[in-house]
């Protein structure tokens, strides 16, 4: 046990700035409602909520995408399954929020196991496409399930979480925050554990890992299931917060969004997805406003700037925002040591 902890400490040295940044951001989310309360900007609580949920889902996806090198283009499906578990269990009269969360996690774990088992037989572009295909399959399944609202979706009453009364929106905010912190903590341990190191080794050279006597597929599937469960948690919280769920939540563009958030923030970093979600959603809020000031007639067409920004990020931004901060820090340190 002690040896294991020492191992953990040694391994975590390379990601120490990453860790610090992650907890700085999470702490920021805890303090944010105080700021919005005094600045009288309650709307921004909603934005922060969306950032936390999308960030959480992106953190889950990052485990397979960044650390595992498996480019899944269908993780929106797990957000959708998580969200629909809340809706469907309420449809059948189950109002306990903890039960909803449990159903979501179990359902997403099972779905992740099945999809992962089938999809991980392929690799490269084929893997991207088969994950997309499974997501589309589920998307159209929920579109055509008229019982659960079909295309229009279904509205959900806010669930009862026992002692935690969620009629006060701030309580749900903090429930989400606790989940985010738990996910962050779990991922911090997972990526530095033996399992996480193996996953990263598979990314850089799968046959070598196999030659060492390990079965890469097992690690990949496990990673896939964990990430599916995290996305499901985000989806379940999303549904109880919005009090509404529709197939839109699992549209294929959402999978693209998650990928964008990760690459924007920094692949295979802990803080990256959260930082990416902050920048992504702030851009979504700020660009229309900015365009409204410069060219009011085109305020709705903010995506005309957003698209090129994404292309720029790919063309010039290596390593995402965390990479940028890292380089900046490194330069700062070098500058100081010269002085």
């Amino acid at each position, binding site marked *: 046990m002690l040896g294991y902890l020492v191992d953990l400490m040694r391994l975590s040295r390379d990601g120490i700035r990453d860790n610090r940044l992650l907890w700085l951001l999470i702490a920021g989310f805890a303090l944010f409602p105080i700021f919005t309360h005094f600045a009288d900007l309650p709307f921004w609580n909603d934005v922060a909520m969306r950032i936390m949920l999308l960030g959480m889902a992106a953190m889950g996806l990052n485990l397979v*995408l960044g650390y595992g090198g498996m*480019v899944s*283009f269908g993780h929106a499906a797990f957000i959708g399954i998580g969200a629909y578990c809340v809706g469907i269990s309420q449809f059948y009269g189950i109002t306990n929020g903890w039960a909803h969360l449990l159903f979501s996690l179990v359902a997403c774990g099972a779905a992740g196991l099945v999809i992962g088992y*089938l*999809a991980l*037989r*392929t690799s*490269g*572009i*084929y893997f*991207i*496409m*088969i994950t*997309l*295909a*499974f997501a*589309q*399959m589920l998307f*159209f*399944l929920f*579109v*055509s*399930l*008229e*019982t659960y609202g079909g295309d229009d979706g279904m509205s959900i009453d806010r669930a009862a979480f026992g002692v935690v009364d969620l009629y006060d929106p701030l309580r749900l905010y903090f429930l989400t925050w606790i989940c985010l912190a738990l996910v962050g903590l779990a991922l911090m341990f997972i990526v530095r554990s033996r399992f996480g190191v193996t996953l990263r080794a598979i990314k850089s050279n799968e046959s070598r890992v196999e030659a060492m006597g390990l079965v890469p597929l097992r690690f990949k599937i496990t990673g896939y299931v964990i990430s599916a469960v995290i996305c499901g948690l985000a989806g379940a919280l999303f549904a109880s917060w919005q009090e509404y769920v529709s197939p839109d939540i699992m549209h*294929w*563009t959402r999978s*693209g969004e998650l*990928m*964008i958030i990760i*690459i924007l923030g920094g*692949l295979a970093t802990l803080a990256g997805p959260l930082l990416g979600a902050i920048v992504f959603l702030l851009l979504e809020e700020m660009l229309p406003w900015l365009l409204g000031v410069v060219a009011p007639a*085109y305020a709705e*067409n903010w*995506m*005309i700037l*957003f*698209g*090129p*920004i*994404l*292309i720029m*990020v*790919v*063309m010039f931004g290596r390593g995402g925002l965390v990479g940028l901060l890292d380089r900046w820090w490194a330069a700062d340190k070098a500058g100081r040591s010269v002085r």
Partner: protein
Amino acid sequence: MTMTLILEQTFNGLQAGVTLFLVAAGLTLILGIMDFVFLAHGAQVMIGAYAAAAITGATGNFYLGLLLAIPVTFASGYLLEFLIIRHLYQRDHMEQVLATFGLILFFNEVIRIGFGPAALYSDLPPSLSGFVEILPDTPYPAYRLAVILAGLVLALAIHLFVSRTRVGAMVRAGANNPMMTAALGINIKILFRLIFATGACFAGVAGMLLGPLTSVQPGMGEPLLILSLVVIIIGGIGSVRGAFIAAIIVGLVDTLGRVFLPALLRLVIDQAAADGAGPALASMLVYILMALVLIFRPTGLFPAKGS
């Protein structure tokens, strides 16, 4: 009555299949030869449809619209490759997904600003707006028939080009092993650009042909893009022949599944359950097909890459 319905729906499936093939033909080469995940191919469909609709609207002549829109789509593909895509070949798939996703957003917004968010409807020329009797007492819209014919002619042309010409041989060699092809002294950069522009052109033609059948609106190419990705994966990345066969299969399965699957299910399970499950299953059918193909043949039906 049922025979008529089956025949009619088979023709509709064929029409969906050939238009899918036009989108997939270029995309399969882009994926296969350049190993490039190009999601903005749907935007090329949209550009083609809008170009044709705009030129038809301005000149009043449908055929002139089609004819003049072709160089527009070719130019847009050529420019896109030259300005952006060629810088991204060396990047990994994820970054390509991200950049081309950005392109989708950009193109949709450009079209929205240029033509407004509402859908355009273009009228059919009088010569194609009637019906043709494909069998005695079985009328079928002339325009859909024309689309099928045009698609088949283009498919034949693509097939002959790829299998019989010198450039076609280069394309096949490129799909099989791009590095070796370049080492044999073939200017693979120019080849890439031409494939890209031609592929964009075919996608544009698909958009033009579909214009009068569906609504021409921003984002119209995206459902078609997803379906053509399914086609490409089923057919095997980089294989034009595979794309054709898979496109026809997907077109038929999708169209016929939607019409007949609920009825077929009703024979097996009780009506209420069938009415619920039928449409759900029908809309999932092509994706189930793709997943099955990938599970049993992980590189598609006709893989182009040498092993």
